[in-house]
């Protein structure tokens, strides 16, 4: 069932409930007032009967004649007279009814007592007279009232049904009108195909819920578009990064095979092959780590000693760059608090990230030693890695953590633009803040703050 249908049915149901409540209330009130007025009539008749039967001796003839006339007019109601003391019937009529003892005693107690038997209403009245105490019971069926009540029921039913039908039609129209923009929206959304992600939904300019929805949907489209763009660029960049060293390797080999070379030339060639293969290896490894970041449970954290990770990296670097040196210095604050070196992190990933930073520092340090300082920033451990390279120009600082970004001035240093991006992603996952500061007169410091 569509939302529109639901709305119509539900609002009709609610209307039905309300109108039934009102109509039933009206009927009950009306019925009560009819009964009440008939009761008054019966009371009047009872009084009249009392005067007619019991006050004959007290009233003068003309007055009693008038009462008699009035009394004779009564038709349809039965009047019975009982002796209150002996509780026996005194004057009966054609009604096959004898009041019970209970009714009579109740009447003596209350003065006036009304009750109902089937459709017939009874009113019994206690009357004290100089000839003794009497009870007058008047009863009748309110044909007129019943008729009127029945008429009212018919009226209520007819108008109630008409009202409900009208409500159904009107709410249908209303729902159609309300849901029309949604229908348009659905049509627009349906017309957006998988490849035209630059399409946007039209605003109606009404600043209502639908425009909010349009806004949110357009925002979603924007994000999808940009992530699709990143994906497309990623593939292009990644294949570029893989193809370049492959092309160099193949080219080197082909050229070398053209003619016989000297030993020195072969040595140089192999060296170049090694460099490019290593570059290729690093690209592939970084890409694999990057894709693993998305699928594996990177939240798997353990207590690790960050200094151990650092020493492991430095051991590895010594093998990769036998000539490089790293100067590690501990600030007094850290020296006194060994606990600071224990952090919650994913060791495998943090190793990769820190390795990328230290590797960069070594590559860009112009054969100068890399300085690694373990200090404090506030209450947190801060590891600073400084190189004495050419430094990063201010306008490039914001770009260096972007995927595949390479500084134009460093094109002579092998790199693929994944390392720092990857490092940043990993540090973010492990609550490690990374900052960059320029070093005077030249060089760069990366500082890692462990929170």
């Amino acid at each position, binding site marked *: 069932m569509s939302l529109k249908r639901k709305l119509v049915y539900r609002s009709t149901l609610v209307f039905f409930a309300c109108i039934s409540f009102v109509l039933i209330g009206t009927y009950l009130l009306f019925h009560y007032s009819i009964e009440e007025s008939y009761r008054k009539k019966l009371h009047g008749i009872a009084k009249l009967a009392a005067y007619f039967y019991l006050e004959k001796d007290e009233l003068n003839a003309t007055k009693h004649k008038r009462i008699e006339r009035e009394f004779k007019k009564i038709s349809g109601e039965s009047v019975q007279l009982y002796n209150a003391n002996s509780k026996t019937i005194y004057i009966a009529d054609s009604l096959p009814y004898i009041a019970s003892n209970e009714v009579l005693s109740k009447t003596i107690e209350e003065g006036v007592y009304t009750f109902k038997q089937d459709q017939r209403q009874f009113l019994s009245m206690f009357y004290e007279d100089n000839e003794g105490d009497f009870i007058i019971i008047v009863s009748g069926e309110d044909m007129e009232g019943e008729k009127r009540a029945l008429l009212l029921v018919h009226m209520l039913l007819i108008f109630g049904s008409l009202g409900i039908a009208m409500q159904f039609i009107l709410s249908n129209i209303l729902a159609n009108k309300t849901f029309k923009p949604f229908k348009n929206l659905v049509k627009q959304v349906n017309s957006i195909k998988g490849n035209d992600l630059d399409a946007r939904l039209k605003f109606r300019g009404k600043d209502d819920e639908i425009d909010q929805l349009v806004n949110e949907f357009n925002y979603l489209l924007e994000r999808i578009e940009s992530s699709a763009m990143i994906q497309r660029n990623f593939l292009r960049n990644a294949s570029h990064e893989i193809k370049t060293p492959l092309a160099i390797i193949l080219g080197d080999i082909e050229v070398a095979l053209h003619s016989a070379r000297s030993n020195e030339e072969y040595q140089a060639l192999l060296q170049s092959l090694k460099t490019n*293969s290593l570059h290729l290896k690093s690209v592939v490894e970084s890409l694999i780590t990057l894709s693993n970041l998305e699928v594996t449970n990177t939240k798997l954290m353990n207590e690790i000693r960050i200094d*151990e990770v650092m020493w492991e990296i430095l051991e590895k670097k*010594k*093998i990769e760059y036998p000539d*490089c040196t790293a*100067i*590690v210095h501990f600030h007094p604050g850290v020296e006194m608090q*060994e606990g600071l070196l224990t952090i919650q992190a994913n060791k495998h990933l943090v190793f990769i990230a820190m390795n990328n930073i230290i590797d960069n520092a070594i590559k860009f340090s112009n054969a100068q030693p890399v300085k690694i300082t373990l200090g404090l920033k506030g209450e947190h451990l801060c590891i600073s890695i400084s190189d004495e390279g050419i430094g990063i120009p201010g306008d490039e600082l914001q770009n260096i953590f972007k995927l595949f970004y390479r500084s134009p001035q460093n094109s002579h240093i092998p790199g693929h633009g994944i390392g720092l991006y990857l490092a940043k992603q990993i540090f973010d996952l492990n609550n490690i803040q990374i900052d960059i500061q320029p070093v005077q007169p030249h060089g760069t410091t990366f500082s890692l703050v462990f929170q």
Partner: protein
Amino acid sequence: MSNILLIEDDPRVASFISKGLQEKAFQVNAVANGMNGIDEALAFPYEIIILDIMLPDMSGFEVCKILRRRKNISPIIILSALDSPDEKVEGLQAGADDYLSKPFLFDELLARIQAQLRRVEFNKGIVEVQSYGGVVINTDEQNATRDGQALALSPLEYRLLLYLMRNREKALSRIQIGQSVWNTSFDTNTNTVDVYINFLRKKIDKGFDQPLIHTIKGTGYMFKMKQYES
């Protein structure tokens, strides 16, 4: 000359590893499946076993477990194309001593082989220094106790303690300590040695009457039971 058993099914990988190691004066015996590898390893005491994980007949982890169950204690270095921490853990739990993922630098393999050989030598030499001044080192489990209390040492602190125990009652300079304990290019101008001596001191001397690590002004440190008189 050390004997190395190489269990690797890919002939190209096996070929360059054998060639490279032979040039570095190792004796290499290469086998292409797990069964032959196990037979070979149990028949001859190899100094090092290099083990591929994906073998045609069984996994490297299984080879590793079988060898360890049969009381073979040669250091095992696992080579694998997969580089996931889980696999590393699985390998080490199966009884391997080191783990290297492909592609690797040949120099790194060499460095790790040498590290394993050094450890074997080291373990042979320090049998008599495993207990001193109440400190007991368990080289199999790589942990230490003092007066029966377990010491929570990081791997580097453990290596430092081991070195100090081995060279007990000798004055050791910072440079000596640094170059022996750290496998990195060591710079003499830093306070690294002092920092780790300090860490170690807190763990083995704090709360004990008799300090074991003593500072020798102008020289370095000494590991000794009795108070050093300067």
